[in-house]
């Protein structure tokens, strides 16, 4: 288990070497970074297949102490960690390999790969953190990586604004997160997960809703949920592998991971879970709609990520294992979809408009088949990974709604069903326009299949998009039970044991057999709807043509950006300028500081006038002085 340290050290070392020595290298940086990712994956797999893979491990080292406060740098490994570490290291490695192909013509490869390595370090840190303070440290570091990598094409206006926005919006969430952590420390004297677990498992009443809501802010920022979702779609300004790794598969899921961790130890009260459930279900629905108003392939996928993060959030509200299950399958199929998008963008010379593509299936067959698999997975076609995790969430929502009869679960279930209908609609819109029909631009006509560096990771990921969930549900174990499905058994135990328990609960719900058919029908209806509306692939959005008002509503994604832009430009900046000019320059600087100087000068001038050194005035002053002395003595 000591090799867990390697998971942190290797990528950190790689990042440091690249920053210091290999900034301008053509390939060395890329090779070093990928090698460190590969080594990390090997270490992770060796841990996950090792003898102590199912044990709980904890280490701790005091970084500094002041008074009663000790800051511990600790590692913590349990079945939840095992699940996440496989996703992070596995997807991370594949995306590193893919990046070698994708970034081949980029002049700043050193910077890019240093960022990727540093990201792997920080992300692993979040997964292995043993206390909330430590998690916050890595939380900030992944935020920085995200910022630096979004800004990769820093000479473009979009990248410059998007990187700044991502960091600042995350900071707003982290503000609440940090206060929540400090509140936790002030209340319990610790933020260590094990110690908190022992407190909450013996005294569940000690959990505080307010504390949970503060911590929730961190989740809302990092996982881009209401009302802090605005940064994620803009973050697509970064290179596509970054979008795949950071803004789809891992970093944005860190919020879900953190909430799962806390919910698992009993940190989150029922009220907090209800808030998460409703906010996130709403996001799952709204983001699905907004995806229909985008033409940029990456933005469509970004809104789809928002929707699926919402679905994971709903999973947190329903039962922590569900969120992790969907997180895992989503990491596979969404990473695949982003890498497919990257492959196409790379082949189409950075054309990103889906209505300017078309006919890709004939020109890029491997990429297209991979895309088809991932699409079937995301729209939850039976036997594909996405189906299992999404249906588990829907079924639990349904069971809770039918058993408790509370309006909360009814609403959440309704929203999630709508979201499940919308997924095939926007994915169909994307798939038909990109892959079928005829090319709608010169770039699309010239597209050709990408190289092996890009296609091999794609194919591997597509296998996981298909079968990534089997190990969680079916118990397909092999190699002496060390593997379960396509994943190491240790990585599936957290979700697997949860699902086994949950299944009994779900099956007891009245009308469950009907629900199963409804869920399938909703997916089929979505596909049919997509065929009907978008099936023609005519090089433009039929909704935009026939119902421009509706399209505009979808396109504006809830006017959140306009609202925040208005706030920044018209409120915040005006307050700043008012304070800087009126309060700072005029009142304090001019009136108070210079003013007191002027008063001093005027008094000085006045006093100077009184002393004109003539004999006459001196006599006058002397007499006045004598009078004053007498008055003082006798009065």
């Amino acid at each position, binding site marked *: 288990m000591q090799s867990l340290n390697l998971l942190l050290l290797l990528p950190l070392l790689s990042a440091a070497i690249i920053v210091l020595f290999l900034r301008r290298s053509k390939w060395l940086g890329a090779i070093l970074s990928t090698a460190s990712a590969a080594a990390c994956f090997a270490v992770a797999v060796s841990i996950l297949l090792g003898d102590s893979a199912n044990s709980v491990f904890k280490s701790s080292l005091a970084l500094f102490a002041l008074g009663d406060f000790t800051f511990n740098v600790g590692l913590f490994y349990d079945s939840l960690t095992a699940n996440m570490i496989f996703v992070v290291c596995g997807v991370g490695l594949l995306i590193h390999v893919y990046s070698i192909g994708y970034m081949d013509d980029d002049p700043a490869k050193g910077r890019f790969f240093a960022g990727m390595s540093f990201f792997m370090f920080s992300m692993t840190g979040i997964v292995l953190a043993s206390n909330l303070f430590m998690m916050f440290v890595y939380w900030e570091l992944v935020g920085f990586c995200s910022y630096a990598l979004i800004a990769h094409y820093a*000479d473009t206006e979009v990248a410059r604004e998007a990187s700044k926005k991502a960091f600042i919006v995350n900071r707003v969430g982290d503000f609440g997160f940090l206060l929540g952590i400090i509140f936790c420390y002030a209340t319990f004297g610790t933020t260590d997960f094990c110690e908190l677990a022992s407190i909450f498992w013996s005294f569940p009443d000690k959990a505080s809703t307010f504390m949970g809501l503060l911590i929730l802010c961190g989740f809302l920022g990092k996982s881009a949920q209401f009302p802090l979702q605005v940064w994620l779609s803009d973050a697509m300004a970064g290179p596509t592998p970054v979008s795949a790794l950071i803004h789809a598969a891992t970093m944005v899921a860190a919020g879900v991971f953190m909430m799962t961790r806390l919910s698992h130890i009993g940190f989150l009260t029922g009220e907090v879970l209800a808030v998460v459930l409703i906010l996130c279900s709403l996001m799952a629905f709204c983001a699905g709609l907004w995806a229909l108003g985008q033409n940029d392939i990456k933005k469509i996928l970004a809104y789809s990520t928002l929707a699926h993060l919402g679905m994971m959030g709903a999973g947190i509200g329903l039962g922590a294992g569900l969120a992790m299950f969907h997180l895992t399958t989503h990491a596979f199929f969404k990473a695949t979809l982003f890498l497919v998008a990257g492959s196409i963008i790379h082949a189409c010379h950075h054309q990103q408009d889906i209505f300017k593509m078309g006919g890709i299936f004939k020109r890029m067959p491997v990429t297209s088949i991979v895309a088809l698999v991932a699409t079937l997975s995301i729209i939850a076609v039976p036997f594909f990974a996405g189906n299992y995790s999404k249906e588990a969430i829907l079924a639990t929502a349904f069971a809770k709604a039918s058993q408790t009869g509370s309006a909360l679960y009814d609403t959440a279930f309704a929203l999630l069903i709508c979201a499940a209908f919308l997924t095939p609609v926007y994915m169909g819109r994307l798939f038909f326009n990109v892959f079928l029909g005829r090319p709608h631009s010169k770039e699309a006509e010239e597209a050709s299949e990408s190289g092996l560096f890009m296609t091999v990771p794609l194919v591997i990921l597509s296998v996981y998009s298909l079968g990534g969930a089997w190990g969680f549900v079916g118990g397909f174990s092999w190699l002496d039970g060390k593997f379960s499905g396509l994943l190491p058994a240790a990585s599936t135990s957290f979700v697997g044991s949860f699902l086994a328990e949950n299944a009994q609960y779900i099956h007891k719900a009245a009308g469950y057999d009907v629900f199963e058919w409804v869920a399938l029908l909703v997916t089929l209806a979505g596909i049919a709807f997509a065929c009907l509306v978008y099936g023609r692939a005519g090089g433009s959005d039929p909704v935009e043509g026939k119902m421009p008002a509706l399209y505009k509503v979808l396109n504006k994604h809830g006017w959140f950006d306009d609202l925040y832009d208005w706030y920044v430009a018209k409120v915040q900046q005006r307050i700043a300028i008012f304070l*800087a000019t009126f309060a700072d320059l005029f009142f304090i600087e001019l009136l108070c500081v210079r003013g007191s100087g002027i008063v001093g000068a005027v008094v000085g001038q006045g006093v100077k006038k009184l002393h004109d050194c003539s004999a006459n005035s001196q006599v006058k002053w002397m007499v006045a002085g004598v009078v004053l002395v007498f008055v003082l003595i006798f009065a």
Partner: protein
Amino acid sequence: MDTSFDITLNTAVYAPFAFAIIIAVLWKAIGSKTAAAIAALSSGVSFVSALAACWGFYKLGSNMAMFAPAEQLYMLPQLCLSGVSAPMLFLAATVSLAATIYSLSLDIKNAKLYFVLLLVMQGGLCGAFTSANVLWMYMFHEFALVPTFIAMVIWGSAGKRMAAMQMAIYLTLGALVSLVGIIAVYAVTGAAGFNMEAISAAVVSKPVSQYWQYYIFAMLMFGLGTLVSLFPFYTWAPRTYACAPTAFAMLHAGVLKKFGLFMLIQFAIPVLPLGCADWSHTMAVLALFNVIYIGFVTMAQRDVKLMVSYSSVGHMGMCFLGLATMSVLGVGGAIIMMFGHGLSVALMLMLSNIVVNRTNQWDMMKMGGLYKRTPVLAGFFIAGTMATVGLPMFANFWGELAILTSLWSFSPAICALGATGLIFSAVYGLRAVARIFMGVPSGELSKNISSIADISGAERVAASVLVAVLILAGTCPGLITKPADVLLKSFPAYNQGK
């Protein structure tokens, strides 16, 4: 303590004075290049000695005395190290080294005078934090202050006279008020001298009455607060840093400004704990103005140097918040913050001056796209910004974390308001990075962008020194907190709160 400690500590403080005298004596015989070389040598010697002295002190671990005195050198003032003065001495030596190295890259008129003043200032800074005697601390502080004023008048940029005048009046007044406070403490306690240990002993045997504590602490808080740009006595700071020659601004903003906080932590609060308790809420509210009000004002700045200067005023609010808690954690956090901020603001002042010199432009709105021409400069600038923003792995983060954590027990509302500083610094810091380095060059700049060169050798070394120490303290904050913890725990004043 052993002889090596005596030698290194005395060398760290007196070497710059000695080398300044050497340059002055050889005035006619040497050229400006030689003077620069002597200054660089002096900063190097002082840095290495300070490092050795601090390491010698740190090695003592929990056996550290409150004050570790070094043997007196002839008639010179006696020096000693404590848990607060050790990090401050190292900060002073590091920033001095960086400022001197940076000065080597500049073309300075009357360079001999410049380096003499720079060395006197460095000696003054090192002495101010290590003197065993409170009056001598004050004198060393003046040794550091006067060169700033002279340098501003000679080498300053536009608006220097007004700025220099304002700074001189403010800081002299602030120092004067605190001097009265120091003398009052001496008078009231009837201590056997101005020696730090004598005063501590006197306070233990005969505590100052609450009545006197209240008034004397007020004098010290506002007097020393003025030196640290506590709201509303901050207006001298931004213009001073924008106008002063960069090396002096680095030393002033980075090191000298921390003197007020240092005196409060090591002298005023331990001696006058009841007075501090009476004033702590006022101090916290004023500090919140530094954080929030100055945060807004900083966001409105378009001049890159003014932006950095205002941000440094804002961050001082964070330190005062730590002091207001009167706890080991909060004050310890303030010490880390002082250390980290001293390095990061010096770095940012230097880099923003480089940016302004390269572009001939102070307005950030008229820059843009520099990163393609100056990738290394951009890298350092982002590192400096991230340190200011409080990214983990830089020292400032641990300071903010410790201060905010202790602040919750003081008052959750003040903690929440203080934490907004995290958002403010991200807004103006990243806005500056975006406007200067990202996007495409705008207006005038686009015409001569191709003539802009990346960071030069001396500049690169200076920036590397600062970033390296920032990261060292950011990854091993224990180096600062361990001595601080020992010292602060030994003051009863810091053990009342949580």
